[in-house]
């Protein structure tokens, strides 16, 4: 898992590196970010091993229309999810969330359906990368909460607060946090070019 000490290693490792996304490691940058680091919303509980075919079936992938992805989000588990979800709702799931395909439409579907953040005990690695890249906040944490509870997530601190208790999850490394708070890799790159 990514730890705080690793963040320091990353900063050291990558200092002076040509990879442009690394030039904005200063956490104060977050203040200029496109996205708020605090997300407050209603919880949707899901189990372990929520795969990408459940998040969005393969037959809906061939379009660039985000509203199509959004309208089929989580269809494999709850066909009504996209109608019932409200802006900034938070998914809290078990292990291995997003396992399966490399389809970026999975985090895009959740994001455009209104999901504000996904909290899971662990993520499949491609889903993890894709979420950062499309600007969908994710936190690796074990949280004791129920469906429809209201929770608050602090993406910068990596914490989830629910039922009066705050859970410390895994903090994102600095460079990933910057990409995320810029709204994803595309916006991050655009910002660098300005």
């Amino acid at each position, binding site marked *: 898992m990514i730890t705080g000490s690793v963040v320091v290693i990353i900063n050291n490792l990558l200092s002076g*590196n*040509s*990879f442009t996304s690394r030039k904005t490691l200063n956490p104060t940058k977050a203040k200029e970010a496109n996205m708020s680091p605090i997300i407050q919303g209603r919880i949707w509980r899901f189990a372990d091993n929520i795969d990408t075919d459940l998040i969005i*079936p393969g037959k809906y992938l061939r379009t660039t229309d985000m509203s199509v992805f959004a309208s089929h989000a989580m269809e494999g588990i709850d066909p009504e999810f996209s109608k019932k979800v409200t802006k900034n709702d938070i998914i809290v799931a078990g292990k291995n969330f997003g*396992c399966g395909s490399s389809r970026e439409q999975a985090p895009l579907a959740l994001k455009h359906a209104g999901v504000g953040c996904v909290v899971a005990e662990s993520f499949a690695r*491609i889903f993890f990368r894709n979420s950062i890249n499309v600007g969908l906040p994710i936190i690796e944490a074990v949280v004791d909460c129920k469906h429809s509870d209201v929770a608050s997530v602090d993406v910068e601190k990596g914490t989830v607060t629910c039922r009066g208790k705050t859970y410390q999850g895994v903090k994102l490394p600095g*460079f990933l946090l910057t990409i995320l708070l810029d709204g994803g*890799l595309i916006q991050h790159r655009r910002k660098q070019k300005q």
Partner: protein
Amino acid sequence: MPTVSEKILSRAAGEKASADDFIEAGVDFAMAHDGTSVLAVKALREMNVSKVFDPEKIIIPFDHLAPANNETAANLQHDIRSWIEEQGIVNYYDVGEGVCHQVLPERGFALPGKLIIGADSHTCTYGAFGAFATGVGATDMAEIFATGRIWLRVPKTIKVVINGKLPAGTSAKDLALMVVGRIGSDGATYQAIEYYGEAIEHLNMDGRMTLCNMAIEMGAKNSVITPDKKTFEFIKKCAVENYTAVYADQNADYTVEYNMDVSDLEPLVACPHQVDNVCPVSEVVGTPVDQVFIGTCTNGRLEDIEAAAKITKNNKFCVRTIVIPASRQILLDAMEKGYIQALVRAGAMIAPPGCGPCLGAHLGVIGDGEVCLSTANRNFKGRMGKGGLIYLASPETAAASAIKGEIADPREVRLESC
């Protein structure tokens, strides 16, 4: 001491890279297919990048919807073809050439020691050649198209030693399902796997690709089989550039070592809806089947088509059976050897080389409550059609089941059509 993955990533990063380090590495080959290239090119355009870093390092096979199944897909493919031409990407393989994970090895891109990143989760297949190969999503691929570089966290490595010889009636797929069943669907998350042992040495390159293909089904970042005579024999005919074979140091650091033996292995089946939901075929023999599918990047290779044809003999299939060779070359080879003719006579339909119905978009989607016995790598709920049930097995078990119309044990000597 370093593992294979640590060594390859150190070379690609130009600095010593150990497990858990974050590195920025130069990519040797980057692959996207007709599915993922759509969002990758969209992202690249939105990043205002007009030229790719190196058109010769990018490989684009069209395989997921091959040929296009509707106007939307056709228009998206048309746009990507124009972009490919505009960028001067020469390693472009249009519909009908085959599944990306067969095309890249056949065309000599899957080479020992290379860092290969693909916008497809089964990119881990090329570990069969001793490459570090892993999958990413479309926006990561856009970043690679733009810069030729990627950030990676160096994985820890799991060592898996598999001894014994595969018994008659079993093949690489049974071995792969055994490993997935043992390690579990998230048992290797974020980690690399290195395979060793007598059973691995005995596998041909087709079988090694089957095994490495399924590393992602355990959450692994990549898996590696270090190159040997069989590897060099395969690539000497097709390698597109020089390479250096990479081996782990003695006493390399592994997080855990699994020891398995295949001497008594039975044919295995992964039952719905998880790939690690594995049981011996004997536990599900007799389960009625509506459709059998032999193909995909897991089991659409010549060895697989041959195994299916040999099991079939002169029997007839009594359920609809779809056979999709993983590439045009395999289709040609299988025709030359008479395998395709035998399968068609038995009642199989042959579909164009590509992914076919595996991802549930065309060419054999199943209906509510229908059962498909497939040689693919995923049996997730709804993958081949909402309400369908997918069982995963070897080509041998698939052919036997097509003959019986129910899940059958390929070791049964008297297979008679239902």
